């Protein structure tokens, strides 16, 4: 069933962390829309604000983080206006989340079954014990856990990393949320397990018609999973577009740098990986101009003094870079 309209609209969202050393603008004025049944990848290096952005969508920002501006509209409702109880009912039910480290994300002293059933009962008080149990077992089977009935009684430490992440996915999807936020769900896993988990997520996404925000720094995963991609750098979305645009027609130097630094199977023999020089900026003292300027190979004088405007490259492909505003030589003359 196709639904029209946007599932999620984020407008000019700003999130800051108020540390003793000063305000850190972790997310600085980002906007995007997400449709139903869509997979959006958010790519960026550590500290680029990609997780912070996702946490504010599910209302899990931790002190001293605060949304300082903008709006998050989910199915027409501004969730930033929700009170605590409304937010709680929203979490897990409409939007759920899975995390990076499955080793620590499950409570070690309760059985998997207990934690699965809890996810159901805290949104649906009326559900009977047997139904909840049945539904949990069903869900475990869906994510590919064999022997689900027996597994329900086991503790997290009796599960392997991949199995735990499967259980996490089951727990996240048990209430049939419209949106799943996956915060680097495969980073902590072995490569073979990674592939299996991605497979499970893909299948379930299709079965359950769930939209996914997929946060990762692994471009390979993005290519495999996502419809749309946002590339984040230092709290800003520097480029956004369809997965094909991003991979085949990257416009922003940072995106290009990311692609060049990624190993490829189809690469020319002994092609060298090109790292992005320099280190991420200090968000406490962001530069006056483009955040990426000091590390950019094509950095120009203006990049160091003014923030770049966003250029619309068509079909929802946008990029924030001064290069797009450069006139051809003949035009200048």
């Amino acid at each position, binding site marked *: 069933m196709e639904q029209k309209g946007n599932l999620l609209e984020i407008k000019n969202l700003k999130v800051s962390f108020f540390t003793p050393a000063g305000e850190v603008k972790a997310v600085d004025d980002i906007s995007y829309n997400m449709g139903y049944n869509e997979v959006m990848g958010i790519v960026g290096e550590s500290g680029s604000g990609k997780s912070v952005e996702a946490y504010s969508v599910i209302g899990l920002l931790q002190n001293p983080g605060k949304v300082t501006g903008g709006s998050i509209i989910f199915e027409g409702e501004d969730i930033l206006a929700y009170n605590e109880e409304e937010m709680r009912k929203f979490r897990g039910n409409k939007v759920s989340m899975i995390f990076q480290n499955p080793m620590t994300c*499950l409570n*070690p*002293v309760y059985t998997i079954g207990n934690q699965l059933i809890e996810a159901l009962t805290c949104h649906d008080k009326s559900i009977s014990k047997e139904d909840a149990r049945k539904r949990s077992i069903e869900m475990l089977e869906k994510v590919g856990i064999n022997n689900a009935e027996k597994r329900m009684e086991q503790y997290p430490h009796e599960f392997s990393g991949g199995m735990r992440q499967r259980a996490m996915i089951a*727990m996240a999807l048990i209430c049939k949320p419209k949106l799943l936020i996956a915060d680097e769900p495969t980073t902590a896993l072995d490569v073979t397990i990674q592939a299996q988990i991605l497979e499970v997520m893909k299948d379930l996404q299709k079965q359950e018609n769930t939209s996914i925000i997929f946060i990762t720094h692994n471009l390979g995963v993005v290519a495999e999973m996502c419809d749309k991609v946002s590339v984040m750098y230092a709290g800003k979305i520097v480029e956004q577009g369809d997965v094909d645009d991003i991979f085949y027609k990257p416009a922003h130097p940072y995106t290009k740098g990311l692609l060049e630094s990624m190993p490829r199977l189809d690469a020319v023999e002994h092609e060298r990986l090109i790292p992005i020089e320099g280190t991420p900026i200090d968000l406490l003292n962001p530069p006056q101009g483009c955040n990426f300027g000091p590390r950019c190979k094509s950095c120009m004088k203006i990049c160091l003094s003014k923030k770049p405007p966003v250029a619309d490259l068509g079909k929802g492909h946008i990029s924030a870079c001064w290069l797009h505003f450069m006139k051809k030589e003949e035009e200048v003359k």
Partner: protein
Amino acid sequence: MFSYIVKRILAAIATVLLVMTITFFLMNAIPGSPFLTEKSTPQQIELANEKYGLNEPYIIQLKNYVVNYFKGDLGVSLKMQEGADVGTIIFGQNKFLISIKLGLLSLLTSIILGIPLGCYAAYHRGSWIDGLLRVITTVGVAVPTFVLAAVLLIVFAVKLGWLPTLSGSLDNPLAYIMPVISLAFYDICYIAKLTRTSMLDAINQDYIRTAKAKGVKNKWIVLKHALRNSLIPVVTFLGPLTAGIITGSFVVETTFSIPGLGKYFVESVLNRDYPIIMATTVLLASLVIFMNLVVDIVYKFIDPRITYTSKEA
């Protein structure tokens, strides 16, 4: 599970035997014989010689001592109550009973008050109550038991006259109040601090974030997810807690003149009545070791991660 418990019990017994051995050799390290003093009567020398076979090699003496101990024969007092059987002194004159009552009351008080206070402080972190509790608990773990006992005595018994003073017995239930508070105060504060810290630690764990993301109510996040995890370090403190209460009872019983085992032990130490010292040490050490055993088993129930084939003694 069963084999785990058996293993722990065996380890505990081994530790008790070790304590007995240490005690025995320490006593034997004293010049002359531990069971005799310059003032010993010939009759006592005879008694002691007969009892412990003092002319036998040490190892045989130790064996006899251990065997006698388990038979319930704890020796004969040399000074405090000349010639009286130590077992009768300890168990027959209500000394042990009074101390056990006092100790258990303190143990319960410190747990019943400490854990909820710690939880409350952690849940309302940053509030003025949390601040106040932090000040109280921080000061509380710095006040020596005897100072607290003395202050209570001065304020409530001498100045205000609300509570019975230096009664010498504990027939009046009110007489328990001051000793129990003195004994338990340090532990209440320590447990509250410990619970608060481990609670806050638990609250910052990833699984709490998961629970929040699931939409679990805040109340349940604290009571279900955080509490049980944060109790693990508190449970491990029960062993030291028992040891601390025993130690504290020496001071508290002396301060309040309570005729319990603690006071008697201190007197026997000051009077160098060796058989009493030995018997009491072994008895109290066994209590602590028993408590450690209980902790190990309770621990197993709270934290499923502990494997059955856990550490040995």
